């Protein structure tokens, strides 16, 4: 085809499109490269480290043999799994009834009850452990209730995990129970089915996949959580604390890597089984389903209101204990209020800087992470170039869901710290902490972005192509504005999680970049529980403030800017 045959109008468009495809291909290549660098390579480093001795020589399975012939080490597998199973068995029924109360009854204050139950999401996991120590620990206010038993150990871990995991299970179960076809209930009623039978034959099967998913999520959370076991576990060893002890305590990186690999097994197994189960899920709700409107039932509603109030009260009470304790002069002997626990300089040379490091780190992770995740999801979902590259990018983006933060953190230690890696100049810097947090929380953010993008008409790209408008222009002018609510959801999600996480970053901070959550662990280790509680309180308040700001902006500012959503 000769250039002369083209009108001047077509000329630039022609070169424009090859540029378009080029830019998209380049984008996919950069995305894959980024995900390999920040997710795959660190995990690979961990894997290879577990087959090497301290000097980096390949030793085959030697480390694993040592691990499994040391009862104090492999005993932790049993401990971890056992604690996780018990926690799951306790949390799921409590959360299910709570979710049922929120979705299937006509009770007042649903919004408040739901918000109260979600509070633990805005705190580091170890906050509930700190609270339990204040209540039932050696100087506990309610120590007498234990009748001589100790909260330090499996009982404390399970109890703290129940509080920490409750909102995670609740969100899934509320979503599962919230979707129901009223017609199924009408049919069951019309056939004269008794209430309990309707529950067993309609309600429960409808929520089946949500229940299974919630079980796996809670199980994985407990197995992989580091903070709670660290604070309240006492002499009870679990996998997460083992990894920390091997790497930070004994500098035994090879054994740390083996523990990391072992830790990966239950998490990956839960992830894979859950995926397989969810794949069987067929859409229970067709487009023609009629949403279920709960009917009034005085007795049930009163009973469940009382139940929900008790649970919500416990959550607020337990979290509140740590907040309250952070203002107490000398627990439990002098309960007068003070701010001296917030003078961190008196317990730790880093003083307030960990808090500001955390703020800076979380904000950077939110901004950079959101930009990468959303652009990446756009490339994966909306473009047609390099289908192989896009498939790889999607797979890598889904990977962090199955990788515990502690394992990812270990991977980063081995990868970034390696002598051969030119990136090792970043070790201990804020940049590594930011990049690690983005990778750690990538999957949920990626899925949120994909969901938002899938709701956009798939023909927008076709229309712009027919109008010879470059793809980046439609991305900036149409796709991003439409997805603004999802983009802010992603940003706030990364911000809150980066602020509260302990597990991944505990290995990665450097001299000037200690984070607030790490400072909590250190103060707790040093016996300054009040200081730890104070720092945790700061994190909770900051995360809540960010969330409230988000809700406020969403409701009052964006709605005004997005006049086009209103009829």
């Amino acid at each position, binding site marked *: 085809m000769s250039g002369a045959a083209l009108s001047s109008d077509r000329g630039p468009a022609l070169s424009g499109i090859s540029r378009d495809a080029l830019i998209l291909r380049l984008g996919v290549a950069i995305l894959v490269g980024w995900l390999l660098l920040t997710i795959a390579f660190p995990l690979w480093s961990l894997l290879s480290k577990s087959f090497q001795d301290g000097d980096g020589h390949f030793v085959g399975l030697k480390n694993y043999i040592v691990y499994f012939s040391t009862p104090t080490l492999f005993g932790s597998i049993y401990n971890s799994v056992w604690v996780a199973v018990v926690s799951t068995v306790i949390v799921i029924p409590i959360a299910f009834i709570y979710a049922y109360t929120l979705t299937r009854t006509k009770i007042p204050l649903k919004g408040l009850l739901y918000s109260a139950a979600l509070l633990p999401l805005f705190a580091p996991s170890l906050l509930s452990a700190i609270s339990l120590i204040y209540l039932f620990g050696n100087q506990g206010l309610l120590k007498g209730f234990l009748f001589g038993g100790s909260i330090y150990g499996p009982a404390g871990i399970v109890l703290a995990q129940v509080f920490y995991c409750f909102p995670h299970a609740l969100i899934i179960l509320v979503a599962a129970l919230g979707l129901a076809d009223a017609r199924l209930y009408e049919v069951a009623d019309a056939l004269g089915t008794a209430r309990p039978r309707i529950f067993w034959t309609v309600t429960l099967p409808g929520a089946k996949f949500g229940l299974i998913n919630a079980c796996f999520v809670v199980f994985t959370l407990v197995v992989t959580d580091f903070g709670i076991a660290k604070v309240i576990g006492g002499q009870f060893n679990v996998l997460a604390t083992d990894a920390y002890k091997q790497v930070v305590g004994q500098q035994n990186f090879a054994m740390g890597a083996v523990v990391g690999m072992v830790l990966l097994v239950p998490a990956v197994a839960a992830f894979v089984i859950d995926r397989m189960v969810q794949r069987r899920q067929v859409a229970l709700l067709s487009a023609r389903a009629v949403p279920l409107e709960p009917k009034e039932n005085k007795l049930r509603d009163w009973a469940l209101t009382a139940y929900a109030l008790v649970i919500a009260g416990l959550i607020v009470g337990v979290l509140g204990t740590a907040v309250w304790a952070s203002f107490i002069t000398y627990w439990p002997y002098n309960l007068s209020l003070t701010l001296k626990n917030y003078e961190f300089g008196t317990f730790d040379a880093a003083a307030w800087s960990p808090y500001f490091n955390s703020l800076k780190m979380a904000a950077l992770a939110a901004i950079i992470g959101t930009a990468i995740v959303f652009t990446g999801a756009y490339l994966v979902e909306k473009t047609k170039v390099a289908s192989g590259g896009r498939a790889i990018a999607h797979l890598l983006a889904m990977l962090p869901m199955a990788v515990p933060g502690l394992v990812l953190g270990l991977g980063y230690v081995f990868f970034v710290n390696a002598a051969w890696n030119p990136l090792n100049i970043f070790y201990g810097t804020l940049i590594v902490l930011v990049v690690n947090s983005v990778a750690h929380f990538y999957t949920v953010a990626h899925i949120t972005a994909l969901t938002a993008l899938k709701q956009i*008409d798939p*023909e927008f790209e076709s*229309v712009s192509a027919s109008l010879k408008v470059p793809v980046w222009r439609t991305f900036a002018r149409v796709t991003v504005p439409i997805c603004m609510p999802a983009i802010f959801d992603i940003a706030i999600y990364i911000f809150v999680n980066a602020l509260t996480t302990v597990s991944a970053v505990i290995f990665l901070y450097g001299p000037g970049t200690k984070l607030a959550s790490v400072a909590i662990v250190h103060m707790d280790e040093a016996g300054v529980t009040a200081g730890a509680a104070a720092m945790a309180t700061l994190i909770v308040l900051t995360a809540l403030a960010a969330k409230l700001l988000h809700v406020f902006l969403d409701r009052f500012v964006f709605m005004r800017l997005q006049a086009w959503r209103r009829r």
Partner: protein
Amino acid sequence: MNKQIDGVSRAGNGSVAAAAPFLRIRNLVKRFGSFVALKDVSLDVTSGEFVCFLGPSGCGKTTLLRAIAGLDPQDEGTIEMGGRDVSHLPPAARDFGIVFQSYALFPNLTVAANVGYGLVNRRRPNSEINARVKELLALVGLSDQETKYPVQLSGGQQQRVALARALATSPGLLLLDEPLSALDARVRLRLRDQIKDLQRRLGVTTIMVTHDQEEAMSMADRIVVMNQGVIDQVGTPSDIYRHPTTAFVADFVGSMTFMDAEIAGPDGVRVGDLNLHCKDAKGFVQGSLVRLGLRPEEVRVRNLDSATQNKIDAKVLSLDFLGSFCRARLNPEAAPGITILADFSANLMRDLAVTEGQKLAIALPPESLRLFARG
């Protein structure tokens, strides 16, 4: 309705014969995995023509449209547009405007910004763009809606905005992918006329995909009937209706009664015990098995005399009232296993007082009996 179709087809025919094809499609093949969506499809579309791709869902009509647009490129074959080989060009390097069933309007942009979306990119002065947007909105009758957002418009209005947006850059080819399917019946009828009228005034070569035969009949100069990835027949609406070349086309466009028959001679067929005259029998070998087709409206009841051919006695099995006419299911006495569909006008129903169970003398005109190879 027949007369109207006739008129359109003649006008179409006149312009079709003279010009060289604007769009030349040769041997197009498209596969999705092991499924072959297009099997060696070739087609010419003349400049200024309105062509409809008609067929049931999954027949390949949308696949063909998207291949022409370059949105889902073909695996084999060539496409030429205005003498230019565009087979391997990306969509933006081809010259077309497109309208989708879902409208695909940008929800966060005003009507004016949507229509001007493709113009802004051409570095024209704002005043020129505004003038063009106004002109287009006037063309589709939405002059006063400029500042509204898509969500504030009705479905029909949104689709007209999409049409204006597609025409804004004056493309050489307009592609319409089931543009009316998402609208309710009344709006659909009105927009059908508006699109057809607009297309004639602008003279833009247009291809529309539809599964609605009535829509295709009333709008197209030529209809391309597709079935299972191949083109069954191309022709004017009246061609397609009167001289369907395959049983599929006959059945899909309009309705038809099919009966198994055997060729009895050069001008006759046998259906069970019935011997019928049939003009179509010439092309078939005597004794071969065929399918005999007859449109319900061709069944004659009035003015039958001893000279009338193919006169048979039948029993009225049932009558379905369909407004301006009744569809009857008739059972020939000589062939009890066969049911013939017949459309009786309201007039005829009143004059003859047809009732269910009644016996009726009917005639199956030899020139209306279509024969199709069986298989």
